């Protein structure tokens, strides 16, 4: 789907991305992970035609130019304002028209329902929260049912509910065998969805072991276990969402939840998540994961 060869972008004094070669294959959910300023967005902007590389080449869907594949790709750029004077419905319709894939209003309504904005069809985008804007951005990216979806920081600076919605959308795309390329600054939101991951630091691809974020995650060595009241299936996704922001290797059953955390100082925030979800806690235990494994 995407093949980049020695892609490089230099600004006057800085090399933003340095000879990046990577492949994204059909059906992959590919995550490019790296801290802020590592070159993720520069790379994303080049492969989506927003900016141009200094050197190197890339092919998308076996085409050397984006011209012929634009109708088959969906793009959600990072930190992009929306057309605030338009309603959610008008926004989707306008951008679909530009792609040349106009659809029925009912299709757009269905799409807004899919991203959890069904009650906001006629609301002006200017009144939306960052999370709602991101979901609307997500909706416009998939409105024309593209084969390849590219998302820049889909989980950045948004509320837990929006993160959950976007994860569900990506999960659906995964089941539809679509190809997704996304960037994120932490692997915590992408671990459960991505089938392939690459790490970027200071403009270069690095191995997972040398990546600072990955080191932090793998150094989680306390397994916290929570014995609690019966959890309904409706509550589980919300609780999962909260807990994924705190730890890794999360296991939720009907009456017990466990996850890996870095220190005991994180336990109070986990308890707060249970309280928010109105789940009664009976017992909390925290054990060194290394000694128990």
């Amino acid at each position: 789907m995407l093949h980049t060869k020695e892609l490089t972008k230099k600004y006057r004094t800085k090399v933003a991305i340095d000879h990046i070669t990577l492949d994204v294959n059909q059906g992959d959910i590919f995550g490019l992970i790296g801290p802020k300023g590592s070159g993720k967005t520069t790379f994303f902007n080049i492969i989506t035609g927003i900016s141009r590389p200094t050197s190197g080449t890339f092919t998308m869907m076996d085409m050397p130019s984006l011209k012929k594949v634009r109708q088959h790709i969906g793009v959600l750029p990072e930190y992009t304002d929306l057309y605030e004077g338009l309603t959610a419905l008008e926004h989707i319709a306008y951008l679909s028209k530009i792609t040349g894939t106009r659809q029925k209003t009912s299709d757009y309504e269905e799409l807004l329902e899919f991203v959890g904005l069904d009650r906001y069809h006629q609301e002006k985008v200017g009144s939306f929260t960052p999370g709602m804007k991101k979901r609307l951005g997500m909706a416009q990216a998939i409105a024309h049912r593209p084969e390849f979806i590219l998302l820049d920081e889909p989980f950045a600076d948004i509320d837990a509910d929006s993160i959950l919605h976007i994860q569900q959308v990506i999960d659906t795309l995964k089941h539809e065998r679509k190809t997704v390329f996304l960037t994120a600054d932490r692997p915590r939101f992408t671990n459960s969805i991505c089938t392939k991951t690459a790490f970027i630091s200071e403009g270069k691809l690095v191995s997972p072991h040398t990546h600072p974020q990955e080191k932090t995650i793998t150094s989680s060595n306390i397994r916290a276990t929570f014995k609690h009241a019966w959890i309904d299936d409706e509550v589980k996704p919300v609780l999962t969402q909260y807990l994924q922001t705190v730890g890794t290797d999360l296991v939720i059953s009907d009456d017990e939840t466990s996850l890996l955390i870095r220190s005991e100082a994180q336990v109070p925030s986990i308890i707060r998540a249970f309280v928010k979800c109105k789940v009664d806690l009976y017992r909390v235990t925290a054990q060194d994961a290394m000694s128990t494994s």
Partner: protein
Amino acid sequence: MNEFKQLFKSTKSILTIVIIFILSTFVSTLPFIAAHQDKWEAKDPYSIGNELVMSLFGFFLIFLLSHDILSREIHLKTIRFLVSKTTRLNIIIGKYLGLMLFWLSCIMTTYVLNMVISHRFLFSDALKILTFISVGISCALFLSMLFPTPQKSMFVGMLFSFLFPIVSMISVLSSERLIHWFQYMTPYYYVRLSEPLTYVLMNTALTVILLIGTALLFQRRDV
């Protein structure tokens, strides 16, 4: 079409039509128009009024409404949505056509209002004004791409809309070599030529040159 809808749905369209109509009606009643009416290409006093008003204030009105046509989108980064969906040339053409459609509606409405009074609809005069407006729109697109923040494009655009007609007229009237060459780059020179087709063709050529310049600037820019 978004540009056209946004401009046309707002009070801007009504205000533009009212301003042009009132000014042109006022100018058409001035004694010197009647005195020199036979020297004008357009014989109708209302048409002369429209032509004079647009020559003096056309660029100002165009820049007032559209100085940030591209700079706003670049600044807010909404342009990234468009760039990922279509070619940069298509974006320029789309913006140009959207603005042209707005001005076509305004000018045609003004001429229809004039027709109510004068009982004549001067299509060829309206077409001439539209080609002049086309040059103004292309200038707005070019400067909006050259200065990609709304504040800069507003400052430069307003300054340009005041200075361009003045410098153009000086270049046409002056025999000073330093400024005389500039006349070939302005629609004000071609309006003096007796053949209206030359005026329309030269304005079209200026429009195409400016649009190509804008597209080339856009191609080279990371947005």
